[in-house]
């Protein structure tokens, strides 16, 4: 029982990393129609920026500022590189973000080194909260809380702000949104930045848990795509759910059959695709 809880909680943490990534990927896929392979690169960038900023503004300052710094860089990439490719064959933006992913990874390697760096978290967060549940450290609890709050805030923005209403409307019919006087160039840029903000946050949280390496992005991005497929493309709640499900599944599997922890993610995906091709909460007709 202890083992199961341990595995499930570990998985929940990783699941939140997947979910934050998958939510950003989904936002960008929905409105920008871009499959953003560079998402993992931006995630790592968020973590490394926090690492660099922390000595000056402290851990909490870095946690608050770095996602926005990553989002600002995302904004630059959208404006400079991705925007000229809207409306063209999706293959172009796919190739572009793939190349950008390689560039970001090498850039991190050049600036911060290939070895990886430990991202120091405040000492009191390292201690277990109870003797029985030794795996429940303050930091892990923090990860769950911050990720949950960020997800809640995202859904609140989408539901209650005009920006969010326009993003949801634009997912369905961007042309009509433009014809109603909305600057869709700005809308797409802000949406892209919002997605990168979530990636940056995931990078910082993951950095404190798993350490920072230049390849952390590329190792987290595939499961994040799987999360989208499992949850159902076009549904943000689906992306959240998909991330948590595969995270917990992988976490539990690690406890019992360590070798199968990665395979189980793809097994779940295959199973979902067999039984319900559109994913758990996916829109009808998107994949069927």
């Amino acid at each position: 029982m202890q083992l199961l809880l341990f595995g499930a909680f570990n998985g929940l943490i990783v699941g939140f990393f997947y979910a934050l990534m998958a939510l950003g990927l989904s936002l960008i896929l929905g409105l920008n129609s871009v499959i953003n392979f560079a998402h993992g690169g931006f995630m790592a960038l968020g973590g490394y920026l926090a690492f660099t900023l922390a000595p000056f503004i402290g851990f909490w300052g870095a946690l608050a500022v770095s996602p926005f710094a990553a989002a600002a860089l995302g904004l630059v990439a959208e404006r400079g590189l991705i925007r000229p490719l809207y409306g063209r064959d999706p293959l172009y933006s796919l190739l572009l973000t793939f190349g950008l992913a390689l560039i970001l990874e090498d850039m991190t390697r050049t600036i911060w080194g290939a070895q990886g760096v430990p991202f120091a978290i405040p000492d009191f967060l390292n201690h277990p909260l109870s003797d029985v549940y030794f795996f429940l450290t303050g930091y892990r609890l923090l990860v769950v809380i911050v990720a949950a709050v960020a997800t809640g805030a995202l859904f609140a923005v989408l539901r209650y702000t005009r920006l969010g209403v326009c993003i949801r409307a634009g997912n369905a019919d961007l042309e009509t949104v433009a014809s109603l006087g909305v600057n869709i160039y700005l809308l797409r840029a802000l949406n892209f930045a919002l997605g990168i903000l979530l990636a940056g946050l995931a990078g910082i949280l993951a950095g404190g848990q798993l350490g920072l390496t230049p390849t952390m992005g590329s190792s987290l991005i595939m499961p994040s795509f799987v999360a989208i497929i499992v949850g159902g493309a076009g549904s943000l709640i689906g992306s959240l759910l998909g991330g948590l499900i595969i995270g917990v599944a992988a976490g539990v599997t690690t406890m019992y059959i360590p070798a199968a922890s990665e395979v189980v993610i793809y097994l779940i995906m295959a199973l979902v695709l067999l039984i319900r091709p559109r994913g758990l909460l996916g829109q009808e007709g998107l994949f069927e």
Partner: protein
Amino acid sequence: MTLLLEAEGIEAYYGKSHILHGVSLSVAEGEVVTLLGRNGAGKTTTLRAIMRLTPPREGRVRIFGQDVTGWPTHRIARGSGNGGVGYVPEGRHMFRHLTVEENLRVPPPTPGQWSLATIFSLFPRLAERRTSKAGRLSGGEQEMLAIARALLLNPRLLLLDEPSQGLAPVIVEEVMQAVRRMRSEGTAILLVEQNAILALAFADRAYVLSDGAIIHEGPAAELAADSEKVKSLAGARASRAA
């Protein structure tokens, strides 16, 4: 007479197929102009070219005397400080999974007569259903929502693409009542219709489009009086049934 809209020599394509061949038309301040023509004549494409949703390859568009050729769609819709262009697309294009109220939040708030409050007094039905998903509205309610959404830009010019499409005659009458109200407020209207009888009864002037070219232009009353001509030009149905 101030011209609100002037389109000149518009050439439009979908990929390689050449759809509009030098379409020119104009709408004056406060005027109601109808654009008639058979199915596939290019009426929708003409409106899309004006809004630059289908960017024309040749030709110029002036709105409120300003050359807007090459402007992105949202700037054309917003206009340049002196009122925008409201576009009500064919088939309504609701954001189906958004509520009525959310649909109405999409256009940026614009100073002028139309706000959420005045819109709801013009369309009490929409006020009643403000929290319903737009996809659940009836056809008539959806048309009203599409018009309401465009009105929130406080346009001086309204482009309406087949507002009667798929609606029962009573509902068409209700929609047209709202359009009449807009007209009496001084909003100029370019009305695309397949239902020529309905449109001619309402408009000041008419254009007839065939195979992407204007083949007739004149006062609406003149055309309305000659139903044989309407039939041969625009293939209009003789009845009002939609």
